[in-house]
C-alpha cells in the first residue's frame, strides 16, 4: 500500500507530540456546549493549553454510539440551534486563530443532508482537517472517501475489540490522519477500568496501522493509559471533559491533568 501523497495536518500534529516524548491529546466537545459562545472560548482555551488535535462534535438527534453524557450535551446543543452549517461558519470566522487541526465528529445524516461535495468544499474553506463518522463502516464509505481524498480531508476510521485482523488491514490500507481505537464494546462515556483485552488488541492494531493510533471511549485520566503506553500515539477524551466543565471548572484545568 502506498502512502498518501499529501501530508495530513492531523498526523503531523500527533507525530510532533510523540517526537516531544508524549502522547498527543485530542479533546472532544460538542459544538454549543456549554453554550453557543462559551464553546468557542473553551476551544481556544483547549488550543492554548496543550490540545494537539481538537475534535468538535456535530450534534445529531439520534446519536446511536454515544453514552448518556455526550448524548445529553448534544441534545442541549441541538436545542440551542447548532447546525453543521453554523459550525462551519464559526470555524471559518476563526480560521487561523486555532492552531490545532480540527476534526469534526458526527453521524452521517447531517453530512448527507448537507451534500458530501458541498460539505467537503465548505469544510476545507473553514479549515477542517478531517471527520470521524461513527455510523460509516468501510462497507458504506466509498463515496465519501473519494470526495474527501479529492479535497485533502482525512476520514478517520473507528475500530475496536471485535474488529478482525482482516478488517483492521482493510481500514489500514487507506487510512489517513489517525485510526480511532474504541476501548470498550460499548458507547462513549468515562469508565474507571478498561477491559483487559484492550492491551493485546491494541498491540495487534499498532502492528497493522501505519497512521497514528488513538485510544478513545472511556478515558478519564492518564493513569489508565500506563498499560497501553507502547501501543498508542494519542488519546481522546470527551465525557470526562464535559463532566469537568459541568462542574464549573475550566478546560485549562482539565488539560493540566495530562501534562
Amino acid at each position: 500500500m502506498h502512502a498518501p501523497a499529501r501530508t495530513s495536518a492531523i498526523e503531523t500534529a500527533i507525530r510532533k507530540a510523540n517526537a516531544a516524548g508524549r502522547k498527543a491529546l485530542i479533546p472532544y466537545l460538542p459544538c454549543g456546549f456549554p453554550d453557543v459562545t462559551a464553546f468557542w472560548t473553551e476551544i481556544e482555551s483547549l488550543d492554548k493549553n496543550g490540545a494537539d488535535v481538537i475534535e468538535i462534535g456535530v450534534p445529531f438527534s439520534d446519536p446511536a454510539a454515544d453514552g448518556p453524557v455526550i448524548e445529553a450535551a448534544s441534545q442541549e446543543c441541538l436545542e440551542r440551534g447548532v447546525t453543521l452549517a453554523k459550525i462551519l461558519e464559526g470555524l471559518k470566522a476563526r480560521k487561523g486563530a486555532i492552531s490545532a487541526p480540527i476534526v469534526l465528529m458526527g453521524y452521517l445524516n447531517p453530512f448527507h443532508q448537507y451534500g458530501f461535495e458541498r460539505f467537503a468544499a465548505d469544510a476545507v474553506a473553514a479549515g477542517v482537517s478531517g471527520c470521524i463518522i461513527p455510523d460509516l463502516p468501510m462497507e458504506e464509505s466509498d463515496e465519501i472517501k473519494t470526495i474527501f481524498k479529492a479535497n485533502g480531508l482525512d476520514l478517520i476510521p473507528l475500530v475496536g475489540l471485535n474488529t478482525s485482523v482482516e478488517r483492521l488491514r482493510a481500514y489500514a490500507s487507506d487510512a489517513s490522519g489517525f485510526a480511532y481505537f474504541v476501548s470498550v464494546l460499548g458507547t462513549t462515556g468515562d469508565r474507571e477500568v478498561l477491559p483487559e483485552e484492550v492491551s493485546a488488541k491494541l498491540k495487534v492494531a499498532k502492528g497493522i496501522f501505519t497512521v497514528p493510533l488513538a485510544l478513545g471511549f472511556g478515558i478519564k485520566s492518564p493513569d489508565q493509559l500506563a498499560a497501553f503506553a507502547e501501543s498508542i500515539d494519542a488519546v481522546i477524551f470527551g465525557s470526562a471533559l464535559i463532566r469537568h466543565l459541568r462542574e464549573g471548572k475550566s478546560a485549562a484545568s482539565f488539560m493540566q491533568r495530562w501534562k
Partner: protein
Amino acid sequence: MKKSYFGDFGGQFVPELLMPPLFELEKAIAEIVHGPEFQRRFAELLADYVGRPSPLYRCPNLSADTGLNIWLKREDLNHTGAHKINNTMGQALLARMMGKPRIIAETGAGQHGVATATAAAMMGLECVVYMGAVDVARQAHNVRRMELLGTTVVAVHTGTKTLKDATNQAFKDWIANQRTTHYCIGSVVGPHPFPTLVRDFQSVIGREARSQFAAKTGGDLPAAVVACVGGGSNAMGLFHEFVPHASVRIIGVEAAGSGEPGCYHSASLCKGTPGILHGAKTQLLQDADGQIEPSHSIAAGLDYPGTGPEHAALKASGRATYVCVNDAQAFAAFKILCRREGIIPALESSHAVAYVLDNVSAFAPGDHVIINLSGRGDKDLDIVEQLLKAEQKG
C-alpha cells in the same frame, strides 16, 4: 447493486463495533434459517402457537356497500393480536438456535414488545424491551403485559422519548452485549440483513393470502393488496408474494396525522426525503439540517419517522403506490368495521381500511381487494374513548 441494498436504499450504516454481529446474523440466516430444521420448527410454531393460517375473510357488508370484493387478511386473530408475533417467533427461534440466551427489542405502542416478550417466555430466553418514557406512560397496559411475561421494560428518557429513541437504546445494548444477545428488531427496518429477515418471517401473510384467495374464488390473483405502513413489516409481509405479479396493484397506506398543514405525521414515504437512520438509507422525516423530526399518529404503531428501505425502493421503482390517510379517516373506518362487520380493528390497520372505503372509485366495480388487518383494536380502547368524547363535544 450491493446485496445489502434494495435499489438505492438499505445498507449497513452502523458503528464498526456492530459489523461483527451483523455478519454473525447473516451467517446464521444462511446456515440456520434456510435449513430444514429451522423451517420445520418455525412452521410448527406458526401453526400450533400463533394459530396460523389466519383466515382470509370476504366482508359481505363492506363489499355490498362499496361494490368491491373486500377481503381481510385476519392477522388480528393471531396470538397476541397482531402480525408482530410472526416475526418474533422466527427471531426468538433463531436466537435459541444461535445459542444466544438473551434477546432485546424496541417498542413504540408495545405490540412488538409484547410479541417479543411472549416469544422469549415460551423459548426460555431472557428479554429486555426498550420503550420511550412517553410511550411507557401512554401504553401502560402493554407494559404490564410484558412484565407479566417476565420481561424487563426499560423506559428511555432521551430525545423525543418515543420509538426512535428506544431503537437507539436497543442498538447501544446490542453493541455492549452482542456476545450473548440477539436484537429482535420489530419491523423491516435497520441495517441489512434485518429488513430481509423480518420480511421473510412476515411473508407467510402474503403466501397464505394468495393460496386462500385462489381456493376461495377460483381466480388467480386479486386486483390490489393494501396495508398500513409504519416500519412496514405487515405491508412487506403481504406485498412480497405479489411483487412479481405486475397485474396486482400494491398500495401502502401511511398515517397523515391530523391532516392539517404543518402538522406532525408519520408519512415518511409520501412526504419524507432520503436519509440515514437506524442503520439504513431510507425515506425519513427530517429537517433541512438532517435532524430527525418527531412523528405523530393516533395509531401508536405507525408513529415512526422512518420506514423500511424496501418500501423506499418499491416507491422509487413505481411498483408500489404509497398514500396517506389522516386520523379522522382512520377513526371513521374503525367505527364502520366495528358496526358493519363486527370486527374491532387496530387503529393502524384502520388506515388501510379507510383508504379503500374513501377511494372506491380508484378501483373497478367488483375488483377483489385484499386488506391486511394487521391487528385487533383491544389495545386502542383508551384512545378510542378519548376520540369519542372529543366527537361528542365537537
